[in-house]
């Protein structure tokens, strides 16, 4: 039968090719991403991985030092970090001359230098109704005159980019001065975000609707090749001026810093010629690909395989032999379950967990105590997470390590005692606790049906609540529906999460600020004392006094329990030995511009 011989030949051929094409001596880094990208127009994207790739195309005014921990702002396209003027309401920047955009047909062969005009144009793009920018809120009632311009644009449908905006004052070719409505000590962080970057107007107008596919910036890399949701290739930007590793803030005790300094000292960066990125949604293939040496770095090792990589905390023998290094990073993010504090859902359904009376607070506090968070961390996350003590994750300005939230620990007896005390007992002995006024108690918990992890978290929720006699029904909904239901208040309890946009506690605490209800404040938590303390904290720069106010807000959160605090996840990033200069930054998603590759070592390892 001729068939078997044919398949044998096929397998032999495949094995030979599986080694993959090795460019002569070009340094090609291959890495996989956890989810697919959407596009590369900085003002129009907000998903983590697209923004991460944009960090390599564009350059904001300020950025973060590669090695400094905790994180420190450093100037990038700006010459220096400006001192706040007029009581923190004005910042003036001088742009470093000689910074050029990458070549593009839109510039008609002429080398295009970065000017203040580009900064002004890019900030205005956030308020252009046609672009529907997900980060429009960054510049809402922030810059003097910008809101009025945006209002006019909404009516007419298009934004007038020529219009003068008082708060965006261009003083000459390289100088721009921002005037804020009120003092905002986090404004500098906003200017360091990878989205708040200058784009050339000619490029935007030339590609119109397809700006997602034509990122033209002053950054170290350019987009060479892009097969949507399958392969993204970056290559060195010929026009890039080059940069060096700044070792001022390096910490000699940190072995990552030492390794980075030793391999990158004195080199003109970026060292990599080419970066190939493969989005792989499924965990198993992404993990196996790294083990098969098809990729050089494995960012965010899937929890499921943690015991294969680090059996009881130590690197597995086979990986250690191959010289793999593990970088342990505490994510600046928070997972939490949010309760709807309105006494009625928006569709009129009565919501037993809503309300501020002691009776309702007791129910929420009991549910928080009844949730088995320890098992979530040990079984579901395999120990790769820290139990959150407050909304503010570690590594973020305003994080208080000494704050210990006893009220959020797993303690079923206290939960049962609290329920009995406030009259939540089983009256019609159907095995489920009823409400104090006799009506049946039925709480619905909404989660995103799309992922297996969410389903198991929901399973743990239902199991934990059943242990203490509360009847909970878990309802899986589509991702888009979950977002909508949480925004309009059509839920009782639901799963949620928040990643830091900029490294300040205020980015998390604003989630419980009363006026934000209906937007980021999904719980619609309206507590007068909390709001007063929050407003006072806005007007203060980072200081012990401000930390005191943050502590006050955390205590109010624990008392009224609008949330059940979840975890801050810990990610382990793996790299093969031939990847040099690796150090994961808490805020910046990618670090390609600081990496180097020892192609000879990789060549040997692949034999």
């Amino acid at each position, binding site marked *: 039968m001729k068939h078997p011989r044919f398949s044998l030949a096929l397998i032999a051929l495949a094995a030979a090719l599986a080694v993959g094409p090795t460019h002569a001596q070009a340094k090609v880094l291959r890495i996989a991403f956890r989810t697919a990208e959407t596009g590369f127009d900085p003002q129009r994207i907000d998903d983590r991985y697209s923004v991460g790739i944009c960090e390599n195309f564009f350059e904001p005014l300020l950025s973060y030092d590669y090695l400094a921990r905790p994180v420190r702002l450093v100037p990038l396209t700006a010459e220096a970090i400006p001192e706040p003027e007029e009581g923190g309401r004005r910042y003036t920047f001088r742009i470093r001359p000689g910074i050029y955009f990458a070549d593009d047909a839109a510039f008609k062969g002429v080398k295009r230098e970065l000017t203040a005009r580009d900064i002004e144009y890019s900030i205005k793009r956030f308020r252009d109704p046609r672009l529907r920018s997900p980060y429009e809120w960054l510049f809402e009632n922030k810059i003097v005159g910008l809101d009025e311009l945006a209002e006019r644009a909404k009516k007419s449908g298009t934004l007038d980019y020529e219009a003068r905006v008082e708060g965006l004052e261009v003083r000459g070719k390289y100088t721009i001065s921002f005037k804020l409505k009120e003092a905002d000590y986090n404004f500098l962080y906003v200017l360091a975000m990878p989205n708040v970057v200058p784009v050339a107007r000619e490029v935007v107008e030339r590609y119109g609707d397809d700006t997602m596919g034509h990122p033209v910036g002053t950054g170290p890399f350019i987009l060479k090749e892009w097969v949507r949701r399958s392969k993204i290739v970056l290559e060195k930007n010929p026009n890039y001026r080059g940069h060096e590793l700044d070792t001022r803030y390096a910490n000699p005790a940190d072995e990552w810093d030492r390794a980075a300094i030793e391999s990158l000292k004195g080199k003109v960066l970026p060292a990599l010629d080419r970066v190939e990125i493969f989005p792989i949604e499924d965990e198993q293939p992404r993990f196996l690909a790294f083990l098969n040496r098809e990729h050089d770095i494995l960012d965010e090792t899937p929890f499921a395989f943690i015991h294969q990589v680090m059996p009881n905390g130590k690197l597995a023998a086979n990986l250690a032999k191959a010289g793999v290094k593990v970088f342990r990073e505490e994510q600046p993010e928070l997972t939490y379950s949010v309760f709807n504090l309105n006494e009625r859902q928006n569709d009129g359904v009565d919501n037993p967990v809503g309300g501020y009376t002691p009776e309702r607070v007791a129910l929420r506090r009991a549910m928080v105590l009844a949730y088995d968070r320890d098992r979530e961390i040990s079984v579901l996350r395999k120990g790769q997470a820290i139990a959150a003590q407050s909304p503010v994750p570690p590594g973020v300005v305003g994080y208080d390590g000494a704050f*210990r939230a006893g009220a959020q620990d797993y303690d079923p007896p206290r939960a049962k005692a609290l329920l009995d005390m406030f009259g939540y007992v089983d009256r019609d002995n159907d095995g489920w606790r009823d409400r104090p006024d006799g009506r049946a108690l039925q709480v619905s918990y909404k989660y995103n049906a799309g992922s297996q992890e969410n389903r198991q978290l929901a399973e743990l929720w239902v199991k934990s609540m059943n242990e203490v006699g509360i009847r909970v029904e878990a309802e899986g909904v589509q991702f888009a529906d979950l977002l909508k239901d949480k925004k309009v208040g059509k839920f009782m309890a639901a799963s949620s999460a928040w990643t830091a946009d900029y490294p300040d506690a205020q980015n998390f605490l604003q989630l419980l600020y009363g006026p934000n209800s209906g937007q980021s404040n999904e719980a619609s938590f309206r507590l007068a004392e909390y709001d007063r303390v929050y407003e006072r904290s806005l007007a203060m720069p980072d200081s012990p006094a401000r930390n005191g106010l943050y502590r006050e807000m955390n205590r109010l959160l624990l008392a009224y329990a609008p949330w059940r605090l979840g975890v801050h996840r810990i990610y382990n990033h793996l790299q093969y030995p031939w990847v040099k200069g690796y150090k994961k930054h808490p805020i910046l998603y990618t670090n390609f511009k600081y990496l180097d590759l020892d192609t000879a070592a990789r060549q040997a390892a692949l034999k």
Partner: protein
Amino acid sequence: MSAILTEKNSIPPPWQESPGLWTLAWRRLLNDRVGVVALVVVVAFISMMLASYAGLIAKNWSKEVGVSYANPVFMAGAENLEARAVTNRDFGTQAAPVDLSDVDPLAPRYKEWDERAAKISVTETRRSETLAFGGDKWGRDVLQKVIKGSEVSIFVGLTAAILATLIGTILGALAGYWGGKVNDFLEWFYNIFTSIPYILLILAFAAVFKKGLDTIIFILAFTGWTGIYRLVRAEYIKHGAREYVKAAQAIGASHMSRMFVHILPNASHVILVQLSQHVVGFIKAEVILSFLGLGVPVDMVSWGTMLAEAQNELVIGKWWQLFAAGASMAVLVTAFSLLTDSLRDALDPKLK
């Protein structure tokens, strides 16, 4: 003519119904060895399903009796890292929990709360290292999960198949019997359903209905009736032209009686075979639905949810949940398919 009709005669002899086509088919099935074995297996699964439904077995499948990924008994020695996963206590501070008494609305009753809490004893569940056929991530007994899972999967498969067969038979009968305008309309309806890719149809219906067990049954039934419709329609066209139907028309039988009293029993063997084929098809489809997140609700378990859960377990060396769900499903589906084949051979009425 009337002479004979009124003539009195003896009481009719005792009523001993001679074997009809169904009994003959049953006898033919019995002497088909493979068919009998398949029948026994299917009956075993159905009785297991009923026992589990009545709560006789696998009642507390969801109780966590073992450590996480407890080893099967026959692999007691194997290393189980997951079981000893360290809970991350070392988050830096051992400081005393913060005092909330000045802001906490529950503060007035703190004392009463502490007294009550002290009285409630903590029942520490002892988790065994090994289980009959191993444990899953939460330490639940995989064997009990498979049994409970079989109840849900078979229930979904059966009900969806019955519903789909009902829809397919009624529409097929109407199209095949009446022909003309009715047939054209139903063919148009059929064409729409078959032109849309199957996966999109499932996702579309999933988006329409609220998640839940009955949703899955509706989704499967509403997308699965087309195959049955096609065959029943062909059967009705064939039988519609047969002489016994013309004879029924001649004696004045109504359309309804011709359709359902005369033709339906003669098409019943096609319908029965389609029904059992669709039970098998829907049990397998439920797995795909669970993989897409449209599976049974969280507090239930089915083979589909088990397989979806077991996706990444093989790589970390925990093969038993994947094997248990996969194997038990394979055994039932094989038995059901072989039974269907034997049934088709037994039922095929060679109208001698």
